[in-house]
């Protein structure tokens, strides 16, 4: 399988691209994608993440050529591709519905792109066999697509896209039709194959856990614009807005006033208590701010920084789920492995504390 590396992974550059649609109800134009400017390095796995209608699929379809940008230019491997029709672009896409041709068997589906490229029969046979082995579908060449399970269909779709050795591999929510367990299994497979082949991949999903698990970089979109770009760790621990913080996992927001500023740190007064957090923002004393805290970053104890009262205590198996009241704010806490710790009951007065590196000031 050593020879099955992508021949030349290509980078993608979206140069201030926008897409305008007409609202069918009002008849007015609106931006589905607005001034998106980003660069995807060759060989990386980048995920476009966001809620429904944020423009992530439109962006992906513009890269594939199914939509054309109204403003800006798209570059693939340094070449502008706006003028190229989809069949002339060096991309291959895995669709949400898999889009397997129902009148072809597995082999013919995978071989479709190669036949269009006038590859010789022997070469087609060789490459299809290799790619089916890679996606663990050997021996199923003659099966019709409706004789396959959802996961197998997904693998055929992936094989069909990979076999043409595209410069960029595009995924449009490819796992959304699978059950939860298979989804986890398949995303691991996709990542394995992408890394094995060293191919550039652009992946669209609205599932933040999928994005975290699979990506080198995440591009979080909201209402057609990029809300934040960065590695999963960066986005998770250093969200640049309430939207990003809330979209990526569960989050608590503690409102307060900056009481002291030091180099890379700030004290924020919440409910009369000064809490120290790490920040790279230019803040000054007296500024209003919000401390972003992940539920698993908070420690509940008899002694701690901030006094609170337990309102919900619920055993969830691998963790204990708490809701505690801090002033007017309800704070969610996930306490992992509760069997080794003290469990607090509803109504108990306790305190919360956290590592300042796990908190982030907005």
């Amino acid at each position, binding site marked *: 399988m050593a020879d099955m590396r992508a021949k030349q992974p290509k980078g993608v550059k979206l140069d201030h691209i926008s897409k305008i649609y007409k609202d069918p109800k009002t008849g007015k134009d609106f931006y589905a994608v607005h001034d998106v400017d980003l660069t995807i390095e060759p060989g990386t796995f980048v995920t476009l993440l966001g809620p429904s209608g944020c423009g992530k699929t439109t962006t992906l379809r513009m890269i*594939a*050529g*199914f939509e054309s940008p109204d403003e800006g230019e798209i570059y693939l491997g340094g070449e*502008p591709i*706006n*003028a*190229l*029709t*989809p*069949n*002339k*672009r060096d*991309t*291959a*896409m895995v*669709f*949400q*519905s*898999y*889009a397997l*041709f*129902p*009148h072809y068997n597995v082999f013919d589906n995978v071989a*479709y*792109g190669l036949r*269009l*490229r006038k590859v010789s029969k022997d070469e087609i046979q060789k490459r299809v066999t290799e790619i089916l082995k890679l996606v663990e579908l050997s021996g199923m060449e*003659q*099966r*019709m697509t*409706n*004789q396959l399970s959802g996961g197998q269909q997904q693998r055929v779709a992936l094989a*069909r896209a990979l076999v*043409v050795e595209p410069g960029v591999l*595009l995924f449009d929510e490819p796992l959304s039709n699978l059950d939860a367990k298979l989804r986890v299994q398949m995303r691991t497979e996709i990542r394995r194959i992408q890394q094995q082949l060293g191919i550039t991949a652009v992946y669209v999903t609205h599932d933040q856990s999928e994005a975290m698990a699979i990506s080198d970089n995440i591009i979080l979109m909201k209402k057609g614009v990029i809300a934040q770009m960065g590695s999963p760790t960066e986005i998770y621990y250093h969200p640049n807005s309430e939207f990003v913080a809330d979209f990526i996992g569960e989050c608590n927001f503690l409102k307060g006033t900056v009481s002291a500023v030091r180099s890379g740190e700030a004290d924020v007064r919440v409910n009369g208590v000064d809490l120290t957090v790490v920040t790279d923002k230019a803040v000054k004393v007296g500024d209003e701010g919000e401390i972003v805290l992940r539920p698993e970053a908070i420690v509940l104890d008899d002694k701690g920084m901030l006094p609170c009262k337990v309102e919900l205590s619920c055993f969830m198996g691998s963790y204990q789920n708490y809701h505690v009241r801090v002033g007017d704010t309800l704070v969610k806490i996930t306490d992992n492995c509760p069997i080794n710790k003290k469990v607090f009951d509803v109504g108990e007065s306790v305190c919360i504390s956290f590592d300042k590196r796990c908190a982030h000031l907005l």
Partner: protein
Amino acid sequence: MQRTERSRGGLDLSLLYKVFGAILFVYLFLGFMVLPCLNTLTSIFTARDAAGNVDPFAVIRFFFAGNMPSFVINSLKLAVCLVITVNVVGISIVLLTEYFDIKGSKILRLGYMTTLIYSGVALVTGYQFLYDSNGMLTQWLAGMFPGMNRQWFSGFSAVLFTMTFACTSNHALFLRNAIRGIDYNTVEAARNMGAKPFKVLFRVVMPTLLPTLFSLTVMTFITGLCAMSAPTLLGYNSINPEIVRLAGSSVADEAFPQARAALLSIILALFTIALLTMLNHYERKGHYLSVSKTKAKLVKQRIQSPVARVLAHIYAYVLFVIYMTPVVMIVLFAFQNWPAVRAKSLNVSDWTLINFFGTQDYSYTTSRGKQRIRKGVISGVFSNADTVGGIRLSFVLSALAAALACVIVVVAVNYIFKHKDKKRAAVVEACLLFPWLLPTILICYSFRTFFNGEVWYVLGKNLYYRENVRFLIVMAYTVVKLPFALRMVKAAFYAIDGELEDAARNLGASSLVTFLRVKLPIVLPSVLAVFALNFNALFTEYDMSATFHSSYGKSYAMVIQSMTAEEGRDGYNMNGSGRRCASTVFIMLVSGLILYLVYGVGARDLGERLERRKKRREFFARITGRRPAGN
């Protein structure tokens, strides 16, 4: 922005295709839809009086002064009565086979569905075989009541009776589907809340069927209004037969016959447009769709009252007898020799295949006592030159028209889907639906009159002249079948996953390759089904054939009609009735085969087909002792 890659090469072939396609479409739409119909409309107002002056209102004055309103009133009378009788019988047959627990419902359903393979001129002549002055039933009744009027089966009542049983096919298909779509839990819920069985039927089941019933009612009304074969063969003065009569008449015989025919066809068109607009408006309100996520299958209801149960069974089997008797008699007599057919007496010893194959001579004694022989005047369907000619002509014309309609519609629907949010797609669709608004007779009459002269855009030819009429028939058949083909093929295109096209394009296929290798193979079963259904309808089609009737355009339906008229006269065509029966059997076989292929084989999903293929291979492998091939 850069120019698209395709335009870089200089000559843009796709643009050429588009321009050529647009010109061809406009030519066909204007030339074979708009202009002929417009000519019909204007001919009403350009009639000339005795002095040769144009009198725009002469025809309208004539309409009110003469007996023309009676044709309109007769058609309306037939349509109104037909709506009542067809709904009564149609609802009955569906409830008896799908809703109530009636013994032998599967056999009953088969009987009620015979009109699917046995309709039009074949059905009418079948009823004539049983009920006309020389019919079986009439002979039997005349034996019991010698003074009875042997012409009892003619006029309005005969047309109404025949059409009532001929027009329940739509109920058998669509109402049946609607009743099968009912969630049985709603019936159980009503029963659970204390409703009696008939209350459930009228308050829960029937209201959900109302939208389907409304559509069927409108379609039945239009069928009654535009009735052709039954009124023609059974003698009833309605609009369509009068239009055909006037179209063949000349000013030497009566006042402006063509303009009167045009006026009648326009009146028919106005009624049709009004009814279809009403139907469209009603359909837009939407149907009642079950919101159930776990729909329960309808369980047949046992009629609790023993008296009602017996009456329901009697009613069901009486209807069955009415449906089946003509079919069974036609099939049986198709295998009887001419004396048996003429005497309407079945005899096993008179069993023969002469009505299908071969010829026989006929010997008879003249009034002067001489013995004469007429060579080959007893002939079978496939040995009689006239009949074979009719079959061949109808086969070729129907196949050509059905294929042409499919090609036009597939190309157009592909265009419509590619530009679905654009106005030009809506315009193309509207153009193809245009013939739906017009009665068939108006289109055919317009073709016949407009092209019965030299027309510049068809190379200055008269298309109603000699063999040219065949081209005219193909064009008329095609135009009339476009709306049906469009609706069916569009539904098939809707079923294509939009991402398939994207996938093919993404893998490097051009638009044309995507259409030919991805979309077309997927919609092909539906397109073939549309082809088969259109072919089936056209093969024995009567209304249009009657309008274009000429010695060069004598279709199969016209040949069958002629068999009722020329039977046994002076020793010619001795077995006309027997051959008519054999023709009907042939038509039933063809229709049955087509419907089986479309709804039987065609309705199977891919998995079922593969399963059957596997079983077939295993079966042959067992026979031949070889290993099954493939997977």
